[in-house]
C-alpha cells in the first residue's frame, strides 16, 4: 500500500501547485497585459493586487448557476468537468525534478513514471477536446456551437503537427519516458539540436491551448465568447481553470522536452527551481504573444496548420532521422 499513499500525496501536491498556478496565472496575465498596454492592471485588492484571485474566486462562487432553456443538462454539467479533469491529469507524467531523499525514502519528483510517457500526455489532452465540443453543443446556442466546432477542428489539425514535432526529440533521446528525456539533456538541451522542432512545437502548442493568435474558439467579437458563452459561476471558472492548467502543462512539456527540464545552464545546481523558472518564463512569453499579435482568420489558421506547419514538422522528422542514422554509424 506504500506506493499508493506516496502516489496520493504526490497527486495532492501537484493539484495544489496547478490550482495555485491557475489562480496566480490569471493575475500574472492581467498584470503583464496591463503593463504591455501601458496601464497598471489590477492593483486594488491587497498589496500589488495579490488578493485579486481570491476576490475573483469568491465572486464566481456567489454567482447564480444558470443553464439555458433547451440545454442538455447532463452534458452541460459534464463538459467543464471533462475539460478540467483532462487538463489536471495531463501533468501526472511530467517530472519537476530528479530523485530526492525524503524521510529515508528515495522519491522521484514525478507522479507516475510510465513507459509511454509522452503518449499519455497526447492521449489525455486529445480527450480534453470533448469538454469544449460538448459545451458548445449542449448550450443550445448557435455561437457556442460554432465555437465548439471551430475548436475541435483546430485542435485536431494542430495536434498532428504537435505530435510530429515531438518525434525528433524522441529519436534523439530514444525513449518515451519524460524523466529519461530530461536526463538525456544533462549536457545539451534539445532546443539546440531541434530548433525547428521547438518552433513547430511552440506554434502548435499555442493553437492547442487556444491562445492568441489562435484563440478563434473564443473570438469575442464574432462569437460573443465562443463555447462557454452560456456558462456562469463555478462551471465557467472550471473552463478558465482548464485553460490555464493547459497553459501550464504545455509550458512544462516544452521545458521538459526542449529546455532541459530541471537542469540549469552549464550544469548549475540542478533542481526543481530551474524547472519552475523555465515554465514561468514560457508563460510570460505566451502572455507577451497574446498582447502583441492579432487573431488569425479561420481559413488562414487551417491553411497554415496543414500546408506550412505539418510539412515543416515532417521535414524535421526526416532531417533528424537521417542525422541520428549518420551519427550512430
Amino acid at each position: 500500500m506504500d506506493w499508493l499513499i506516496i502516489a496520493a500525496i504526490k497527486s495532492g501536491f501537484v493539484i495544489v501547485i496547478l490550482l495555485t498556478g491557475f489562480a496566480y496565472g490569471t493575475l500574472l496575465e492581467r498584470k503583464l497585459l496591463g503593463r504591455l498596454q501601458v496601464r497598471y492592471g489590477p492593483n486594488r485588492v491587497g498589496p500589488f493586487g495579490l488578493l485579486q484571485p481570491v476576490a475573483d474566486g469568491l465572486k464566481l462562487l456567489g454567482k447564480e448557476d444558470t443553464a439555458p432553456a433547451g440545454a442538455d443538462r447532463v452534458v452541460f454539467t459534464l463538459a467543464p468537468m471533462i475539460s478540467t479533469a483532462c487538463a489536471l491529469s495531463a501533468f501526472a507524467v511530467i517530472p519537476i525534478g530528479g530523485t530526492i531523499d525524503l524521510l529515508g525514502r528515495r522519491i522521484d519528483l514525478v507522479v507516475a513514471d510510465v513507459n509511454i510517457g509522452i503518449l499519455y500526455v497526447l492521449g489525455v489532452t486529445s480527450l480534453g477536446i470533448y469538454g469544449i465540443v460538448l459545451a458548445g453543443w449542449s448550450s443550445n446556442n448557435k455561437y457556442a456551437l460554432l465555437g465548439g466546432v471551430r475548436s475541435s477542428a483546430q485542435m485536431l489539425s494542430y495536434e498532428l503537427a504537435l505530435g510530429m514535432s515531438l518525434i525528433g526529440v524522441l529519436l534523439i533521446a530514444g525513449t518515451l519516458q519524460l524523466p529519461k528525456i530530461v536526463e538525456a539533456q544533462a549536457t545539451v538541451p534539445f532546443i539546440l539540436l531541434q530548433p525547428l522542432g521547438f518552433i513547430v512545437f511552440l506554434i502548435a502548442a499555442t493553437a492547442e491551448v487556444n491562445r492568441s493568435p489562435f484563440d478563434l474558439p473564443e473570438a469575442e467579437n464574432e462569437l460573443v465568447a465562443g463555447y462557454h458563452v452560456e456558462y456562469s459561476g463555478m462551471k465557467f471558472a472550471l473552463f478558465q481553470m482548464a485553460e490555464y492548467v493547459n497553459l501550464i502543462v504545455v509550458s512544462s512539456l516544452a521545458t521538459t522536452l526542449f529546455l532541459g527540464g530541471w537542469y540549469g545552464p552549464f550544469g548549475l545546481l540542478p533542481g526543481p527551481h530551474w524547472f519552475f523558472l523555465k515554465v514561468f518564463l514560457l508563460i510570460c512569453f505566451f502572455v507577451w504573444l497574446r498582447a502583441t499579435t492579432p487573431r488569425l482568420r479561420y481559413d488562414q489558421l487551417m491553411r497554415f496548420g496543414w500546408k506550412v506547419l505539418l510539412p515543416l514538422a515532417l521535414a524535421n522528422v526526416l532531417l533528424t532521422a537521417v542525422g541520428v542514422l549518420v551519427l550512430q554509424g
Partner: protein
Amino acid sequence: MIDTLFFALVAAVAVVAAVAMVVARRAVHSALFLVVILFCVALLYLTLSAEFLAAVQIIVYAGAVMVLFLFVITLLNPAAEQQLADVRSHGIVAAVLAGVLLIEVAAVLRWGTLAGQPASFPPPAVPWSDNVQAIGEGLFTTGFLLPFELTSVLLIVAIVGATVLAKRRL
C-alpha cells in the same frame, strides 16, 4: 486477484455503456457512450500490459475518430423523434442479425478450433521499459513490414479518393 477485479469492473462498465449506446435517444449521447466503451477497451489493454496499444487506442479512436463523429453529429443535430422512428423499423432486422451472430460465436466457442492455446490471465509481464521497443521491432524487423507498408499505401489511396470525391474541381 486485483487484475481480475479490475477487469470485471471495466468490462461491466463497457457492457452497460454498450447497451446505453444502443438505447440512447439522442445521437450525441450514443456517441458519448461509444467513447466510454473505447476508453474501457484501452483500460483492458493496460491490464494486458500493452501500454502502447492503450495510448494509441485513446489518441486515435477516442481522441480523433470520435471527435470527428461528434463534429458531424453536432453540426447536423438531427431531431430525437425522427431518429427513433427510423430505429424502430430496423429493430426486427437488427434483432435477427444479432441472434445469428450470437449463435455463430457460441458455435465457434463450442466446436470451432481457435488457433493456439488459451493464454494465462494476467499475461506474463513484458520487461517494463521495452514495451514500445518490442512493438517497433515486431512491426519492422519480423514479417510484418510488408503488410504495414501496404496498409499505409491503402490509407493514402483512401485519402486521395475522399478528396477527389468531395472536391470535383481541385
